[in-house]
């Protein structure tokens, strides 16, 4: 048995999951996106350095994967902000940066349009809003 593949699989899955949730939460509450991005880059590079100097294969694998996931997360902060502008992810009106986006971009919304089950056919924008507001599902999931 070679456990290194399992170590890589678990690290990849967990770091993507945590990064996915954290980027959304942080982008939603942070007044700037450059500060969290710089922190993610700093952590990512530190983990890569630690990975390079480590002698243990499992440890260098886990650090190498988590470090690159963090570097990708830094880039995801800008991608997430673009989703907010397009209305693909919900804006947080209590965040001044998001409030500005809501005022300047008619496409931006506080609704989480993905927060429902598929119904099996294309929907209009008004129907999409009804589907997420009628079932009281709004903002219960991240």
């Amino acid at each position: 048995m070679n456990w290194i593949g399992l170590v890589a699989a678990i690290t990849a899955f967990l770091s993507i999951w945590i990064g996915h949730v954290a980027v959304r939460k942080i982008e939603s509450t942070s007044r700037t996106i450059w500060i969290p991005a710089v922190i993610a880059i700093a952590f990512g590079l530190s983990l890569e350095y630690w990975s390079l100097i480590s002698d243990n294969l499992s440890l260098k694998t886990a650090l190498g994967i988590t470090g690159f996931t963090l570097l990708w997360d830094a880039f995801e902060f800008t991608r997430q902000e673009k989703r907010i502008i397009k209305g693909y992810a919900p804006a947080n009106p209590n965040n001044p940066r998001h409030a500005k986006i809501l005022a300047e971009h008619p496409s931006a919304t506080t609704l989480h349009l993905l927060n429902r089950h598929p119904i099996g056919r294309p929907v209009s924008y008004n129907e999409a809003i009804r589907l997420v507001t009628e079932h009281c599902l709004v903002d219960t999931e991240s």
Partner: protein
Amino acid sequence: MNLSGLTIGITTLLIIGLGFPLVIRGERYFGYLWWPYMMGIGLAIIIVSLFVSTDWLSVVVGVLGATFVWGSTELKDQAVRAELGWFPFNANKFRPPFEKTIEKWKVPHL
């Protein structure tokens, strides 16, 4: 191949990148109800990695499996994105076996 953590990290990023077209195309042609099969394929690939004696190959196989498992949890959201017109919608999907049973299960969503 010298397995530096850096190489592993970059390789992982590239393999996970395959997850984007996998989820988009998979949902378009097959539908989100294939999620248990996609998750099963991912877990099977991870088990295969245990029997790969070459370290770098075991890592590649393991990460590929993790990509399938992660992708299975993204199919539901992708189905809604297609319904919203953010991605092309295809009504003629290739339905999964035991579709009615799977419909009753809670879709994983992370």
